[in-house]
């Protein structure tokens, strides 16, 4: 098998293992939660027969491993169980709310990547300039400012004082795109701030590093135009490590959507998990943890494979380490 094939195969195996481990973690939530999950929903004064009936419905009376087996079997059939408090099918709940969260997180990541790269390149090619120094300030603040607070302050500035944007809420881009843009502008921006700053910093560092490499000096010695050297050779190589960083940011933005949805009252996955945590609605919590992590692991896998494909050094070292 060639090295790229071996690298891809190993990444896929590792991802499958992680998904299995996370499914065990998600399954364990109900058993690790303090107190009796059924009593928590039915109330302390519920009679024993009702409690027993619900335990049987939720398979909680069966042996441990059987419970896990039944849960996973259901999921493979697309059956995530029923919400204990919302009286709906969990799969249906997620099917309704996942697109909402994706319509905020995906644009946030794309915007963060585009602007992060542009800012990073500007700073690296104008090292020490005011723009470059501003980037350091931006990165420091972006890492220190709570995004939920920035969101609230934006609501006050753009919604209350200036009246440019609606205070909160959500509209689907497929129903009214303009309304979606107006309502998603603030939540998407607060999700994009931190990844954008991180990407800009990384692009700047990489680019400065690449510019000092021998092959760039050679390209210059050959008399290539500075423009061609910078954008064709330096930028291309500076961008490869960004792929890994993007995977990390995808994970963080998925978590950050909990805050964005909470601040802007958006009915997505993040808001759903907060409702379920407060109601101790464990089938929903388990399903959300599993679904979001599987998506994140899948995105990571795709980015990892493309990383190995873009940079041959990675798959070579990976082969050496693994074999």
């Amino acid at each position: 098998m060639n090295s790229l094939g071996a690298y891809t195969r190993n990444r896929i195996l590792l991802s499958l293992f992680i998904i299995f481990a996370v499914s065990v973690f998600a399954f364990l939530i109900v058993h690790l939660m303090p107190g009796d999950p059924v009593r928590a929903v039915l109330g302390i004064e519920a009679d024993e027969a009702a409690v027993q009936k619900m335990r049987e419905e939720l398979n909680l009376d069966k042996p441990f491993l059987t419970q896990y087996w039944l849960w996973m079997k259901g999921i493979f059939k697309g059956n995530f169980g029923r919400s204990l408090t919302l009286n709906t099918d969990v799969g249906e709940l997620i099917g309704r709310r996942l697109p909402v969260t994706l319509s905020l997180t995906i644009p946030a990541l794309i915007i963060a990547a585009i602007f992060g790269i542009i800012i990073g390149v500007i700073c690296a090619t104008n090292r020490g300039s005011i723009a470059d120094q501003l980037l350091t300030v931006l990165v420091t603040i972006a890492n220190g400012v709570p995004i939920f607070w920035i969101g609230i302050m934006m609501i006050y500035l753009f919604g209350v004082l200036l009246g440019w944007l609606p205070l909160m809420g959500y509209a689907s881009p497929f129903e009214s795109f303009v309304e979606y843009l107006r309502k998603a502008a603030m939540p998407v921006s607060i999700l994009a701030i931190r990844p954008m700053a991180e990407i800009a910093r990384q692009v700047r560092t990489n680019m400065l590093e690449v510019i000092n490499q021998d092959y760039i000096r050679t390209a210059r010695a050959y008399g290539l135009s500075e423009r061609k050297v910078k954008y064709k050779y330096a930028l291309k190589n500076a961008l490869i490590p960004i792929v890994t960083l993007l995977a990390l940011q995808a994970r963080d933005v998925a978590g950050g959507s909990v805050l964005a949805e909470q601040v802007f009252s958006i009915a997505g996955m993040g808001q759903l998990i907060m409702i379920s945590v407060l109601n101790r609605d464990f089938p929903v919590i388990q399903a959300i943890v599993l679904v979001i992590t599987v998506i994140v692991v899948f995105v990571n896998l795709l980015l990892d494979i493309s990383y190995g494909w873009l940079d041959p050094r990675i798959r070579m070292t990976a082969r050496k380490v693994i074999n």
Partner: protein
Amino acid sequence: MRSAGSKKSGVFLKTFFGRGFIVKAAVAIALIFILSAIFAPVISKHDPNQINLEKALLDPSPEHILGCDAYGRDVFTRLLYGARVSLLSSIFSTLLAACAGMLLGLVAGYYEGIIGAIILRYVDVQLSIPPLLFTIVIGLIAGKGLGGMIAAISFSMLPGFIRLMNGIVLSIKRNDYIVALQVANIKRYKIILKHLLPNSLPSMFIMFAMNLGFAIMLEATLSFLGIGIQPPMASWGSMVADGYIYLLSEPLLAFTPGLCITLTVVAFNIIGDSLRDAIDPRLRGKL
């Protein structure tokens, strides 16, 4: 000897304050918050939790510098006591994560083999779950309130410490003098206590300092979501959430606690970065 020592600390201070004004400002801000947390009862005579509905949503005045919240509690006093919660919980949870991470990283690095593999795979698994989601679930398992929150925060910082410690142990272990000690039949615990642990301390300390700001942010986030500090206890995060309700009429209520969070986290992050540059510049870009 003494002059050599003071020279060394002179170099340390020079690199630490190398970035000039910014670092001095960060130290000043951190000191202000630490001192106000310690001397909160001296600075303000008000009770942070005393409800007085006659003073509800009072505007700032000489007696209440930042006004009162919806329950008539003095906002400035609550900010001071909020600093206590933020600083104490972040220091405790980071310390907890550092100790547990050192132990697990040491075991994983020194004994490698199957136990090491299990620990490192655990790290991979935890890091693949979005951190905020993971912390929320751990918070649910550990229970509400200060203790559960500290457990949740330290759990989510654990992987970083394990990985760092594991890397340090692996690199020190390959050194000739450690191999020589092993050949000379020196007891394992002696090698660990005398050589591995002391050598890991500078990096672990830097990691500790750099994680404090992160812990403060996480505490604020959990309290904002209502699963951290429980009322009536004051926390900056929950003050932002409470103030958010009155955003239209009293924007200051949500503004000031958020500003405190930002200032503290930025200050601690800058101090952490400068400590790293002063203690071990090679770690730049790695930590």
